[in-house]
């Protein structure tokens, strides 16, 4: 393993928690060659030297190495769980406050928080008089800008998004699809490195942190999960990616019902009998 690669590994681990295996050399070449050329440098060795002192370049390297794969309603199950299990429980438990706060962590180009915003919009009748805050964060400013713009290509707009939602929540502008102002205004986008202190974001009832921690080194994963537990209300929900688990990294969470990607705080003492996954919002309201 070259010294330059080892230095890059150390930099990424420190700056973003990203764990870069030595098998990922091809990824480094594919992602960083344009950055090296754009900066007028000759190779990775020069780049890792420069990022020691050049913060702009360091940020570009972090952004280039971050995985931004996402699409609307990705994997479906977490969104069905949000609609059919999480929202009904929160409607019961927050009936006094009538406020729900959701965090979409590492939101990339915005498809995840906008998918949540569309569900919230569809459930407007049940949420009448409620405030639902959706905070969406990412480390990379370039993807956050795209998320805030809410402009998606022909391919992005079709991946995961039902045609009915496309027609209802988007308008066509040339070859792109633009999310409606109504949905865009529901999401508060902010720049946030998960390795940094995120306590200023406040407390949340739901945290979506999907397909992010799989790229983190074990110590960083433990640290982020335990700090997320502190940001989550005692009866709040953590939603992970399909291939992710907290086992071995945090004892703060336990699986919720039979939905293995939805977790709750282990210390939580349910104030009410939890609804089974699949219960409707109407059932939750009737139960109140």
């Amino acid at each position, binding site marked *: 393993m070259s010294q330059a690669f080892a230095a890059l590994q150390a930099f990424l681990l420190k700056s973003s928690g990203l764990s870069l295996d030595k098998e990922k050399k091809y990824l480094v070449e594919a992602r960083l060659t344009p950055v090296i050329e754009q900066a007028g440098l000759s190779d990775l060795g020069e780049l890792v030297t420069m990022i020691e002192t050049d913060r702009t370049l360091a940020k570009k390297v972090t952004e280039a190495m971050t995985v931004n794969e996402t699409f609307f309603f990705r994997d479906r199950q977490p969104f069905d769980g949000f609609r059919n299990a999480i929202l009904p429980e929160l409607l019961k438990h927050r009936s006094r406050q009538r406020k729900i706060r959701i965090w979409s962590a590492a939101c990339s180009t915005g498809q995840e928080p906008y998918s949540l915003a569309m569900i919230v919009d569809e459930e407007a009748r049940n949420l009448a008089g409620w405030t639902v805050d959706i905070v969406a964060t990412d480390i990379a400013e370039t993807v956050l800008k795209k998320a805030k713009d809410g402009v998606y290509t*022909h391919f992005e707009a079709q991946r995961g998004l039902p*045609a009915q939602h496309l*027609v209802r929540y988007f308008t066509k502008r040339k070859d792109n699809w633009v999310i409606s102002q109504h949905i865009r205004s529901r999401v508060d986008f902010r720049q946030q490195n998960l390795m940094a202190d995120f306590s200023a974001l406040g407390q949340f009832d739901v945290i979506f942190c999907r397909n992010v921690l799989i790229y983190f080194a074990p110590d960083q994963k433990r640290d982020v999960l335990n700090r997320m537990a502190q940001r989550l209300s005692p009866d709040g929900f953590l939603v992970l990616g399909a291939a992710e688990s907290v086992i071995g990294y945090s004892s703060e969470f336990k699986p919720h019902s039979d939905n293995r990607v939805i977790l709750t705080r282990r210390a939580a003492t349910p104030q009410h009998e939890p609804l089974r996954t699949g219960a409707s919002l109407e059932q939750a309201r009737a139960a109140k």
Partner: protein
Amino acid sequence: MKNVLVVDDSPMIRRIAKKILEELNFKTCEAEDGQKALAAVNADMPDAILLDWNMPVMDGLEFLINLRQLPNGGSPKVLFCTTESDVKHITKAMQAGADEYIMKPFNKQIVKSKFEEVGLC
């Protein structure tokens, strides 16, 4: 194995669509216009139809309206797959009984995602 009828007047599109669908474990058959597609569904009703809009003899919308009037014509999932890519066309297709809508050009990810949406993937 679910059966998909691919209806498109372009042999190239039919070939690409069939290749993607077969990779997604569907059995496929094909028709080059709406009229031939109607004959095909009368002989054997498929589980899904990937349907072009603009075709000679009978276009996709006319085929869909005819299909939905057949005794078992409500059962196949119909996914338009067309160059018509504006809200007006999508709305018209959905009102006529389409289940999903794919705008060309398409790729495997989009086809998979739309077939998942109608519960066939």
